[in-house]
């Protein structure tokens, strides 16, 4: 054990006690922050505030619920100013069947909506299957003739939401990158370290002193220590940022939810175990690869293959979870997939598997099911029809693709 610790300390110290390590370790968060700021600063001015004039009030609940959930558009409720109705309309959203809106006194024309939000709005409205909604609420179809969409200039509301989304995406992507670098980056160092010893003849000198097992264990331990330091240095600013963001109410981007959930002891422990297992599994693969390679000249190609392979679980699993970080932790950690894990969120939206997931949707299930990271509330909104608070008796959002047969 003494040999293992001495070797581990050597592997750790030759990497960590160098200025280049700290330059990289401290530079990455700064770069990520600059990226986030750059993204947040860009692309302003093309956003619109959307007002929906729905005199009968039949669609208000459904639209507001949807838009608040998607966090893409914030809708101000209230009576539209009477003098503006029919006057300052810059566009009309095609709702349902276009023929329905023809003949309305307030419709000034119909054209496709230019912005991303408008497209999202248009897509969202597709969920509102008007016929069925009306049928279930007993409202006559004529009410729809009063539905208009008015665009006004940006007043800051949509911009804020968009900023949250972008920052959340950067944080999530950077966090994923950190996770990957910690899990896969250091094991690649094992390849180089082993090959260095093989090439220089050090391995002969060292194997005269200690066993091959101690040598490898020392490397794994030492490089694991480097990974921990690196992970802490890279992860802590994002963790702090995310917790702060969550406390400020920015809780929708899922990466933020993940970071926000991490301080919880249960998630943190499981996540830590997954990290360790993932690191060990990758390190052992790297050690086997290194033992097969004759020299450092062959290391570049092998490392490239290992790097690509390490991305595979992330790429494959990304759509399978609410949170890519959770997925990568699951795969790297060799946590077996649950029979409840869902290959696609949309596939089971609203069906019996979806409801089963939700029924079991405690925190524990969020780990072994679809890895929702304490997202029980959002699952409830996402997966279960009719779960919105305040939806009242009006038309509700129904599953994509119809929802016929749903109760």
């Amino acid at each position, binding site marked *: 054990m003494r*040999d293992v610790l*001495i*070797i581990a300390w*050597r592997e750790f*110290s*030759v990497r960590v006690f160098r200025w280049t390590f700290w330059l990289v370790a401290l530079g990455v968060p700064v770069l990520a922050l600059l990226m986030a700021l750059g993204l947040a600063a860009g692309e302003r001015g093309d956003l619109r505030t959307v007002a929906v004039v729905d005199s009968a009030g039949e669609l208000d609940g459904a639209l507001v619920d949807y838009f608040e959930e998607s966090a893409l558009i914030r809708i101000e409720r209230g009576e539209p100013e009477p003098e503006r109705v029919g006057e300052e309309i810059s566009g009309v959203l095609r709702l349902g069947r276009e023929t329905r809106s023809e003949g309305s006194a307030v419709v000034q024309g119909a054209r496709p909506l230019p912005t991303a939000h408008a497209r999202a709005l248009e897509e969202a409205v597709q969920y509102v299957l008007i016929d069925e909604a009306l049928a279930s609420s007993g409202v006559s179809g004529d009410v729809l003739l009063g539905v208009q969409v008015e665009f006004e200039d940006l007043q800051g509301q949509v911009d804020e939401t968009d900023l949250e989304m972008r920052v959340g995406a950067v944080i999530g992507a950077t966090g994923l990158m950190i996770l990957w670098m910690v899990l896969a980056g250091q094991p690649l160092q094992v390849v180089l370290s082993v090959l*260095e010893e093989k*090439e*220089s*003849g*050090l391995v*002969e*000198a*060292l*194997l*005269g*002193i*200690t*066993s091959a097992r101690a040598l490898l264990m020392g490397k794994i331990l030492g490089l694991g220590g480097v990974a921990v330091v690196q992970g802490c240095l890279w992860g802590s600013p994002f963790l702090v940022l995310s917790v702060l963001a969550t406390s400020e109410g920015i809780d929708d981007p899922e990466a933020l939810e993940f970071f926000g959930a991490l301080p919880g002891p249960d998630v943190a422990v499981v996540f830590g175990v997954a990290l360790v297992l993932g690191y060990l599994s990758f390190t052992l693969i790297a050690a086997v690869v290194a033992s097969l390679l004759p020299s450092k000249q062959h290391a570049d190609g092998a490392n490239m293959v290992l790097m690509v392979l390490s991305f595979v679980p992330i790429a494959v699993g990304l759509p399978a979870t609410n949170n890519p970080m959770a997925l990568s932790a699951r795969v790297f950690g060799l946590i077996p997939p649950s029979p409840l894990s869902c290959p696609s969120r949309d596939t089971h939206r609203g069906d019996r598997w979806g409801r089963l997931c939700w029924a079991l949707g405690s925190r524990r299930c969020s780990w072994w099911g679809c890895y929702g990271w304490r997202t029980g509330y959002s699952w409830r909104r996402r997966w279960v029809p009719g779960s919105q608070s305040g939806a009242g008796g009006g038309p509700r959002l129904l599953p994509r693709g119809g929802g016929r047969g749903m109760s």
Partner: protein
Amino acid sequence: MRSALTLRGVDRSFGEHRALCDVSIDVHAGGVHALLGPNGSGKSTSLRIALGLLKPDRGEVRLLGEVPSGRTRKLRVGYLPEQRSVYVEMRCRDHLVFIGRMRGLDRAEARRRADQWLDTMGLSERARAYAKELSKGMQQKLAIASALLHEPELVILDEPFNGLDPVAQGLLEGLVDACTERGATVILCTHLIEHAERLADRVTLLAQSRVLAEDSIVALRQAAFAGWYEVDFEGSAEWIAGLGGHKTETGWAVQGDGKLLLGRAVEHDVALSRFEAMLPSLRQIVVEHTESP
């Protein structure tokens, strides 16, 4: 005589290639033992087997009188591989401290010895330099210090003179002498025969995966003596010409029985100023052995 290393009837093959064939080597404790032979003769393979880095297909190995164990190798043996075995990404002093600690020294003692050996090898000023910043010769010095740091009972040096300048070669020869003075055994594996001749007490000659000869250098030279004498004298050279002698740059060379030659000189009333047996050099012996089929 106590034995520092014994290989008895060792065979070792790598696939179809037979690297060692019934090799038996006996290294006496104390003194310097040289392993000589051409490239590919099995010198390094023998050392690797002795150190437990390779397992023999057949045969018996004893290291310092014991079946080789990890503890023996760690604490009692120092090994310098043929390649420059230093961590190039480590500082010189840190490298020596690391090796010292791996050799069982506590941290303080490892540091003390590291400083001492850096001083001995003339590397004190480069103590904080990374090994990759050193010249090849300096790296070799560092590797030598790594092998000797813990004052082992058995020192195995595989081509230790590689990359060393003449001054450093002299330094290494001094270190080898110092090792034997404190009672350690040194096994020197080299193709630089002059160094072996100067340093070694005993020699093992290997060629084509077999041991050709093993003895003291004096005994080997005497065994290889072909009866040639170098003679210097005053007066007529008829007597020696009649014996088949011929003139050389430094005198006359003649082959025959020493006593008979001296008797002829006396008969002819020749005043001999020199009568010296021309023992073959170690190089000649090695070349003769390794060239013969």
